[in-house]
């Protein structure tokens, strides 16, 4: 038993061998970050309190910029980076959908039709995040399973100039991730990608291409048939 190879065991003996860290010894209720004595932590606030509050665009831009830089460190190529940003957005979207539906209270409902969910995204979701509606919502003519939501000037891209060697990149992939998560949350599995589609008025115009999985269309067809 002396030579117990269990890592748990060795870890505990190692910690007793060194002097106990005073960090934990001193931690009292007053210094605990999570439970403040005044009960003013963000966990104690009502969820609706931040519903109408505004965020500094600069603060967001700096944070988002750092996020993009961080994501850039561990990727190979543009597609990989977009996937990473998409994943970041996905995590946000999952949580945000929950909050959004909770805030709607009794009027909240789960969309079951493709058109309904797309409108939910381009109206309610967009308004809740960006305080505006998405600029257009279109169906791709050639493919039945593809839809496009366009944003003339995505907030995340306001201050971003993509270098020429990465011209394929659109950091709107983050928003695409949010949209994907919301679609997933409503049981509409889909792939969402962000593409730069500039026009004369809007050099930063971005199109989010939504490609639904085949089972979604199958279900939709059954519903229409009934």
């Amino acid at each position, binding site marked *: 038993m002396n030579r117990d190879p269990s890592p748990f065991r060795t870890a505990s003996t190692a910690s007793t061998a060194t002097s106990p860290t005073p960090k934990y010894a001193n931690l009292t209720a007053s210094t605990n970050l999570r439970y403040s004595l005044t009960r003013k932590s963000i966990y104690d606030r009502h969820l609706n309190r931040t519903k109408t509050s*505004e965020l500094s665009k600069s603060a967001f831009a700096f944070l988002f910029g750092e996020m993009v830089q961080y994501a850039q460190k561990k990727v190979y190529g543009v597609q990989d980076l977009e996937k990473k940003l998409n994943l970041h957005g996905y995590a946000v979207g999952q949580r945000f959908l929950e909050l959004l539906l909770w805030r709607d209270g009794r009027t909240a409902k789960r969309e079951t039709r493709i058109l309904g969910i797309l409108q939910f995204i381009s109206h309610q979701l967009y308004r809740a995040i960006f305080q505006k509606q998405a600029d257009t919502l279109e169906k791709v003519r050639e493919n039945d399973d593809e839809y496009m939501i366009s944003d003339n000037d995505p907030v995340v891209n306001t*201050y971003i100039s993509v270098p020429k060697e990465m011209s394929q990149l659109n950091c709107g992939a983050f928003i695409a991730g949010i949209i994907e998560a919301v679609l997933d949350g409503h049981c509409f599995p889909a792939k969402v990608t962000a593409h730069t589609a500039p026009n004369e008025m809007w050099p930063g115009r971005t199109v989010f291409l939504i490609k639904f999985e085949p089972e979604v269309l199958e279900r939709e067809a059954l519903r229409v048939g009934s």
Partner: protein
Amino acid sequence: MAKKEQASCSSTANLQPTLSQPHPSAASAAPASPQARFRYLATMVVYAVLILNKAGGLIYQRDFNPGLQKLSSNDYLILAGTFHGVHAITSQISPTNDSASSGLEVLESENFVMRCFQTLTGTKFLVFAEPRQPNLDVVVRRVYELYADYVMKNPFYQIEMPIRSEGFDRHLTSYIKPHQ
């Protein structure tokens, strides 16, 4: 989400001159709206904008209107380095006893006037314009603002390195040459 940050500057008093509006119509419009600012600048001829980093390296150079000689990029680098040194000396030879003396702010010659603005972090903005332009302070301040927005907030910009930002170029052009 639409709050605009105010770029900080060392000599606030100098950079907020009384705006003498050339058109009464411009004055009646909301002064903060970008349209009013564009209209206001339409009468001004800006030759070039240069940005120097805190080590005196040239990180941005762009000509807007003909008026200055075309120099090679190497000459521009030398010029930036020279100016960086001169700027430091001009604050040293101040005849007054104030300890906090600024370096060169306005340079005038027969054919142009140059406004230099140094931020608290040591970055220098040089704006060259036609002589007798009264509101270069406003221009320089706006350039600083655009720099803070479209250069510093761009995740692909490496600090102290040459600026290659398409958004900065675009906004600078639409501010300095709105009708072209």
